[in-house]
């Protein structure tokens, strides 16, 4: 275990060093500024048209802080967590790593932690940007509380989705990103909105439930009453957090089992 963590730390540092390129930095900056820029553009347009400004700003802010930041968070995780094995196989570096004791798991964990760290930074920066923009037009009631609550929710989202995407990356080598995107759309978007017990297996349900508990909303235009009518009486927050933790551990374990058991061979090896 200590050996894995040491290897994971080495991978984290090495991959971070590799990631510090202008291209990747610009992608991260682009993702981080997209929600606040969009919010700014939309609110300015609303000001120009002069229609229901106060209500609009509030609704647009919620939309940007929840939907756009979540989108950015998921995109960042797709970029960083999913190609954990694929990038090594395509870069022909897999054999250099895999022939070290415990290095398959160490590399897997190191890349997972890096995906979490980068996606969390991008999401929280985007979130802070949105709150700044929203606050500059119409003072939010408690911007620091909103920032803290949403940042915690996005951190949990990064932790659990990075684990799920990393596990997908060990199973599906060539189309990992497509499969992960399909999972987000099919399971975490549509299935999580189904008013049935099945929605509770999705992480989106638990994250939204925590949002509802902490800040009173998580889906725009959904009141707590409407939400409860659809999904039943909410669980306490700690149960949602436990579900997220269990899913993270299960996904990481599945990924570790697959990566140690699977026979990965680069295309030009015979």
């Amino acid at each position, binding site marked *: 275990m200590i050996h894995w963590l040491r290897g994971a730390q*080495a991978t984290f*540092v*090495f991959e971070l060093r590799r990631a510090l390129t202008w291209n990747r930095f610009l992608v991260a900056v682009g993702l981080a500024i997209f929600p606040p820029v969009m919010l700014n553009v939309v609110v300015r347009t609303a000001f120009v048209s002069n229609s229901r400004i106060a209500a609009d700003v509030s609704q647009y802010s919620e939309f940007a802080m929840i939907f756009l930041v979540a989108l950015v968070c998921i995109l960042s995780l797709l970029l960083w967590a999913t190609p954990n094995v694929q990038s090594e196989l395509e*870069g022909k570096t897999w*054999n250099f790593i895999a022939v070290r*004791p415990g290095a398959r798991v160490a590399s897997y964990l190191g890349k997972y932690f890096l995906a979490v760290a980068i996606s969390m930074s991008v999401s929280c920066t985007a979130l802070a940007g949105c709150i700044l923009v929203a606050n500059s037009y119409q003072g939010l009631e408690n911007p620091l509380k909103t920032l803290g609550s949403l940042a915690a929710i996005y951190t949990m989202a990064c932790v659990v989705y990075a684990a799920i995407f990393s596990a997908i990356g060990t199973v599906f080598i060539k189309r990992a990103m497509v499969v992960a995107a399909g999972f987000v759309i099919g399971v975490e978007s549509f299935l999580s909105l189904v008013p049935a017990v099945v929605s509770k297996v999705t992480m989106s349900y638990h994250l939204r439930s925590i949002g509802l508990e902490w800040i009173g909303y998580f889906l725009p235009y959904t009141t707590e009453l409407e939400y409860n009518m659809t999904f039943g009486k909410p669980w306490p927050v700690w149960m949602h957090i436990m579900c997220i933790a269990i899913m993270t551990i299960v996904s990481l374990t599945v990924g570790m089992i697959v990566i140690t058991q699977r*026979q990965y061979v680069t295309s030009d*090896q*015979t």
Partner: protein
Amino acid sequence: MIELNGVSKLYKTVIGVNDISLSLGTGVYGLLGPNGSGKTTLINLILGQIKPTLGTVRLFGKNPWRRSYLLRRVGLCPALEFSYPRISSLQWVTYLVRMHGFTQHDAAKKAIEALTLVRLDHVMHRPMTEYSLGMRQRAKIAQAIAHDPELLILDEPFNGLDPVGRFEMTALLKQWASDGKSLILASHILHEVEAVDPSFLLIYGGRLMASGSPAEMRRILANSPNTLSIRTNDPSRLAAYLTKEAAIKNLKFLGDDTIEIETLSASSVLQRLPAAAIEEGIEIKEVITSDESLKSLFSTLMKIHRGEIETRVSV
């Protein structure tokens, strides 16, 4: 050290290696075979990177599959070419050594030692993308030896090396062998492997065709169809003499002083050369076997395997 018992590996319907049995103790081995013959598959099986479809593999007495701790004692230099933009060889080798459980400080120290040994210490802080093919090859060797393994496996280590680099690499490998450590050198070029004076393992079409000492391999080679270039002071007379006395399939004049002979048995030609020199007074300046010798050797071994040719050499 390594034992394979009836090992076969199938990639769906393609055979990677086919019913290989061998037992290798500590020593220096040349794994020789043309491209696509199954050398890399065999190495991956030995290192537990892939699981045999049939048969058993033992590395240091244990099944290497799922026992990655055995890899502490092995260093691998794969044939694959890769590129890490902006990463120096020191950073790369240090990272890979750290994967063995060393601290950052110890890993960096070992990486510097290994890079110094392969003479990359003067450029070890430069990005590897600025390296020549030969320098990258040496960096690959450095990552394989940095953690001081007992067994070093090199897959096509001479790729991209210039003559000086080849000489230095050969010297390094000889030094490695003389330190009493084991070495498996996979290549498709005979003379590269020969320089380290190993025991040979000849693999072709996924099968282990033959194994033996360099002398045994030379004997097989001498009895194989081959192409010889002979430099002499009188090519016409030598050609006439050999046509009469030896089993020659084809003969070409190259320039003023060289003849190229295609023969079914190189030894039949080589045995006549002293006689040509003594009886006919022809001066033999140089005899070179062509690069195709290995292909010929494997072709002969295949025929021996099918029973088309009888041989006294144990195969």
